[in-house]
């Protein structure tokens, strides 16, 4: 924390920045790329509108039907639902990884493709999705957040380096730049990918299971960081199984079960009745003998969400109660 080179370096580089970008534009023209991917100013009001999105996979499986979700302005929204309910499909639709068969997603009025070009869409993957033995360092990973700003050859500029440095500092990982990513703890791994989203300056940040394999301290740090990001005007969308943490940091909740069955402020949507709708088994699933979920009151005023096999899936706490470790 002793050195703060970013600000001074950025200031020193400022007179050359114009020139650099001109060169970059020339390079992009030479490489046949449009002069795109410029960092845009945060619009006065960023919103996410998914309207009547239906997604069908080539094998015919309809993963999401007529799903609508509107997030008007900066927020932290928790996306809850059982596995296979369509959470990740909704994520994919927002990230442009699947093309909806019907309906559309708009981010700040832009189509997903436009938002991608503006580098608005940032993604923090689930720990299980990443190849941790891939030969990349912490710095390499965070730098990947800057690729959208670089020219076709992906040669980092001083601004890119500064953004990487700043992102790492914000998550407290500046001391680990040269580590191979597999040689980090679960929480550190999460923070590196958060730093990548920060370096990218994503406006809509999607996090998949951000608290998987993370200790309580890191969880608190991540939550604090997410609140900061919301305050900066970003939309944070979190897909999670960890019901207990939801009331603590989500101001909105969307329940997914084949479609968005309920969405809105946490106080109104994160209720035992609604959760039971999202996590309870349908008649068809019960016929197939699959596990259902029940809610049981616990001794000290909390409600447990319990699977049919007795596993406690989560704990619903009355507002204002301290969380038990």
């Amino acid at each position: 924390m002793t050195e703060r080179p970013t600000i001074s370096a950025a200031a020193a580089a400022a007179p050359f920045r114009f020139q650099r970008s001109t060169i970059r534009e020339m390079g992009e023209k030479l490489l046949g790329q449009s002069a795109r991917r410029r960092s845009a100013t945060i619009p006065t009001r960023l919103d996410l509108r998914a309207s009547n999105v239906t997604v069908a996979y080539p094998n015919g499986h309809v993963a999401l039907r007529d799903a609508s979700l509107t997030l008007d302005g900066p927020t932290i929204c928790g996306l809850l639902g059982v596995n296979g309910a369509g959470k990740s499909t909704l994520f994919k639709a927002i990230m442009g990884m699947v093309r909806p068969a019907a309906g559309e997603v708009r981010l700040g009025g832009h189509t997903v493709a436009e938002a991608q070009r503006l580098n608005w869409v940032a993604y923090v993957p689930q720990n299980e999705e990443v190849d941790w033995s891939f030969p990349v360092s912490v710095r390499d990973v965070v730098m990947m957040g800057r690729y959208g700003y670089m020219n076709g050859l992906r040669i980092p500029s001083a601004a890119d380096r500064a953004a990487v440095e700043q992102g790492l500092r914000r998550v407290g990982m500046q001391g680990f730049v040269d580590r191979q990513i597999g040689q980090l703890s679960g929480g550190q791994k999460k923070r590196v990918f958060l730093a990548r989203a920060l370096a990218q300056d994503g406006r809509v940040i999607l996090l998949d299971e951000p608290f998987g394999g993370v200790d309580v301290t890191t969880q608190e740090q991540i939550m604090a960081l997410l609140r900061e990001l919301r305050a900066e005007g970003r939309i944070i969308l979190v897909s999670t199984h960890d019901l207990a943490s939801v009331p603590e940091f989500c101001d909105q909740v969307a329940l997914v079960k084949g479609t968005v069955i309920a969405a809105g402020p946490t106080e109104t949507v994160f209720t035992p009745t609604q959760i039971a709708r999202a996590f309870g088994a349908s008649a068809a699933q019960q016929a197939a003998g699959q596990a259902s979920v029940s809610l049981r009151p616990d001794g000290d005023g909390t409600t447990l969400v319990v699977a049919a096999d007795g596993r406690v899936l989560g704990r619903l706490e009355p507002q204002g109660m301290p969380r038990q470790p």
Partner: protein
Amino acid sequence: MIEELLLPFDYEYMRNAMLISGVIGAVCGLLSCFVALKGWSLLGDALSHAVVPGVALAWILGLPFALGAFASGMLAAWFMGFIRRNSRIREDAAIGIVFTAFFGAGLVLLTLFPSNIRLRTIVFGNVLGIAPGDAVQMLIVAAGVLLVMALRGRDLVLWAFDPTHARAIGLDTRLLQTLLLGCVAAVAVAAMVAVGAVLVIAMLVAPGATAYLLTDRFGRMMAGATALGGGSAFIGAYLSYFLDGSTGGVIVCLQALIFVIVLVFAPQHGLLAARRARQRASHPAGSIA
């Protein structure tokens, strides 16, 4: 003694063979990093077999054989992808069906239309007898792949590591995949000349796998694999003069030998290093001197 060791350099066919092998080996080594990290070994093997009918057809139609081979490889890759995307067949089964079908078709074509391309040459390679025209084709392929790597290498690394992020920042991941497939198919064609269709996959896997055991940086891995692939192919071709054995066989054996040595002795990811680490973990600090 020295004179004897320099003997292979006196013959033009040996000089050509060593140069061509070295260049192909280096390009294969570069691509082998992606093959190793994407888990494409089986796919690479399939591509190297699927080019055979293209070679036969190109000869029948009087086209450059690299062109036919490349088209045939890409068609096979497309078929595999198509089957996997649109049916419940798993990838390995799709690969197995498509590449054997292509290879079979190639054998039929080669026997129905007896040509001056001998089956033996395709299956086992014959770098010592390479025609000057073919050598030029190889060098063009190598240059093309190097150009793609220079322009799109970083995007390919990003895509190999995290396709979701690549997609989220608006990269055309389908294009990247096609590009890498194209490169693998192209060098498979080139390597077929050096070591034959059967052994191509060794050149496309071993250097990358070896370098992967030695470093945690992609840049170094690529540099190492390129040097290793190029060096071992060059030296293998050179040694085959004295051994009077199959050039392809010598190259691949040499690469396998280096891999085994590295697998055991690699400072961090080798078997011995892993054992040391286990011992350290099971004994409290200080109990071993």
